[in-house]
């Protein structure tokens, strides 16, 4: 599985090979969740202000119809299914415990999905129009961050980026949703990337894909070669399969050789990074004015009866999605939303599917921390694994004795919580959490200092 990295593009130091674990779903096509009886849409789906409902309770809405305005900084919400609007209420949320949400009960009387006819001018839209379609379609980063895409594009344009890097690395173990999206819609992704590049002002597109997905590399390469309009060249760059290849700065370095300086965004070196699934959504938004209604996610792990790649309407209950995949085995003891390296454990499944959720991984067996952790034996594995060259061992032993404020020289403020260090620690030390503790203590101390 380890490739001689000489021929493949990759990042500099550190990283791990946690094993792909992708076999269960890699060869399965994307399957549609049977129409759910209800969807729940939290008004706050990303950073920024909450969406403002523009339909009343009891109103009938059709799939695709706008139901809430995004305000100055957010994106609007659309009805993912046809049905009757329920009152806004506090409902369970996957990451915020409970959040004010709209809901729609499926109802045949509401009528079919809205029609989204093609706009023949879709390739040549004026900039303002293109950007507003991205915004009106409710598109956010589908790689997990869920930041409104129109804002990122606007920012990239202002920062005068010249290169668009498409993230098709999917370096998280278990997940195959981006991979299946690349196989299902390679042309749409390539076209969508060109559309994004135009909006952002980039002159070139590079699509980074890990080398353990050769057919995705082939499909996107073919689609790029078949482009009829060629003013923006599209290149597919095979990268080493190594975690965290898909982390923004790592990927930018791997595919373009550009080093994003410390504490700066990729735009500092003229790069915008977008996820491949986002490109597909942008393509549909510009060509058909079709809003983001569904999300594709991988439902997998040893605890799921029938691992699948599922396309489900946003707001569908995770319980329904899991049910569609045969349910969970009794030995399941952790349910992770997202990938197993950076995802969050869920306490319950009666929560809605949100835009940024790319996977649901059911894990069995005892978790890394269930048997406690041991002392640091100074083996140095975490130092070798950290892609940033930080010192989680030094931070952890200082935090243990309450010296959190001595952790800054050892990198506590720079940690982006990729989890490589915790993964390799033979003493099962929760190094990411030690880094977090030190980071927030240092931030608090800095805040008090500047306040006084």
């Amino acid at each position, binding site marked *: 599985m380890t490739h001689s990295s000489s021929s493949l593009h990759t990042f500099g130091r550190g990283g791990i090979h946690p094993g792909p674990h992708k076999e269960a779903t890699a060869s399965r096509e994307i399957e549609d969740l049977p129409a759910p009886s209800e969807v729940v849409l939290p008004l706050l789906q990303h950073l920024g202000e909450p969406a403002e409902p523009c339909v009343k309770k009891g109103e009938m809405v059709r799939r695709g119809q706008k139901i809430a305005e995004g305000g100055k900084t957010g994106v609007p919400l659309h009805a993912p299914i046809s049905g009757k609007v329920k009152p806004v209420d506090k409902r369970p949320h996957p990451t915020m415990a409970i959040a004010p949400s709209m809901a729609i009960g499926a109802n045949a009387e509401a009528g079919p999905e809205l029609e989204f006819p093609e706009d023949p001018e879709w390739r040549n839209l004026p900039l303002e129009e293109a950007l507003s379609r991205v915004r009106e379609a409710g598109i956010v980063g589908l790689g997990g961050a869920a930041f409104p895409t129109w804002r990122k594009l606007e920012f990239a344009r202002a920062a005068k980026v010249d290169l668009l890097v498409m993230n098709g690395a999917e370096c998280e173990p278990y997940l195959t949703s981006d991979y299946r999206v690349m196989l299902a819609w390679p042309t749409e992704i390539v076209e969508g990337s060109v559309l994004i590049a135009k909006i952002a002002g980039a002159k070139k597109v590079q699509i980074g894909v890990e080398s353990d997905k050769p057919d995705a590399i082939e499909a996107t390469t073919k689609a790029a070669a078949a482009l009829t309009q060629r003013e923006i060249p599209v290149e597919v760059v095979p990268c080493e399969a190594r975690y965290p290849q898909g982390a923004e700065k790592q990927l930018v370095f791997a595919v373009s050789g550009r080093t994003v300086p*410390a504490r700066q965004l990729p735009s500092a070196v003229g790069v915008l990074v977008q996820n491949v699934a986002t490109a597909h959504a942008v393509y549909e938004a510009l060509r058909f004015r079709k809003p983001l209604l569904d999300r594709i996610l991988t439902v997998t792990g040893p605890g799921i009866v029938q691992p699948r790649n599922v396309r489900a309407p946003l707001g569908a209950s995770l319980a329904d999605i899991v049910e569609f995949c045969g349910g969970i085995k009794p030995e399941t003891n952790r349910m992770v939303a997202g990938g197993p390296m950076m995802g969050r*454990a869920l306490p319950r499944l009666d929560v809605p599917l949100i835009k940024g959720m790319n996977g649901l991984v059911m894990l069995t067996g005892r978790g890394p921390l269930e048997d406690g952790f041991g002392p640091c034996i100074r083996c140095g594995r975490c*130092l070798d694994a950290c892609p940033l060259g930080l010192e989680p061992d030094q931070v952890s032993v200082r935090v243990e004795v309450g010296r959190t404020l001595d952790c800054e020289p050892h990198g506590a403020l720079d940690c982006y919580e990729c989890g490589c260090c915790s993964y390799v620690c033979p003493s099962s030390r929760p190094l990411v959490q030690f880094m977090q503790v030190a980071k927030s203590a240092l931030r608090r101390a800095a805040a008090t200092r500047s306040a006084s």
Partner: protein
Amino acid sequence: MSENNPTFVLSPGPHLHTEESTSKIMWWVNGSLAPAVLWGVFVFGFNAALVVLASIAGAVLTEFASQKALGRRPTLTDGSAVCTGLLLALTVNPNLPAWQAFLGAMFAIGLGKMIFGGLGFNLFNPALLGRAFLMATFPLNMTSGWAMPRPWFGAPLDAVTTATPLAVLKEQGIEAAVQLVTSPAGLWNALALGFRPGSIGEVSLVLVALGGGILLARRIITLAIPLSVLAGVALSTLHTGVPLLHLMSGGLWIGAFYMATDYVTSPSTTRAQIAFGLLIGLLTGIIRVYGGYPEGICYAILIANAMAPALDLWFRPRRAAIAGSPS
């Protein structure tokens, strides 16, 4: 599924973990030592077996007793006490009375490890502290009465008071050393296979190297420390004309592959490890050539141990240029 309301673990990420664990690592170290130990016992006979067992027992019992006394969770299964016992046994005279080996192991674990707070907190290599204690307490039993190899089967080879090749080299010069080791077999052959006087584990370079090879292959250790120790010894003994004899003798290889690579008492970054290894190698050569002891690796490692934490802070990992998110 929701009928019986199963509960799920809400541990923080990452939710995957390597198969490697501290105890697996320790047991691999112990296992990799087995060939050298068994050969040492075979070559030196019954008392060597007693010394090995007594040393392991002393280490394990001391760790257990002190954890009981302090109300800590016993950690015997992690294999590290067994490791200390084994390593100590390998560095002592096969003719050492077993009770002295037991005492040495008690000292190694009690004052070398538990008093610092247990695994991970000790500054010095516990096995080498145990050896230093034995050298100070029972110098005669430790340094004289070296047995010539006496295989279990067949007549014991004579000469109960033979000195080790390094001692002969130190006191009587190169010819005498060569003569000693050439008696049952050829010089290098003797050094490599163990038909010569010496401590239990040091007699077979081949088997110690085999064990080191296992640790390298399992990626438990890297070559950074062992190679730089050997390089340091070569550098500091070049002027004696017999660097090869120095390199192929004594407990050097056990020291380089097993003692100096002990995680807890050695530095963690590669650059610090190279500095650490060179320091050990140079000190070993200096002690051997100019110091009072024929073998210098034990004290060289103990001295370098004291510098390991400082070396880690001097040779910090290079921060990646991309480190740091916008805040």
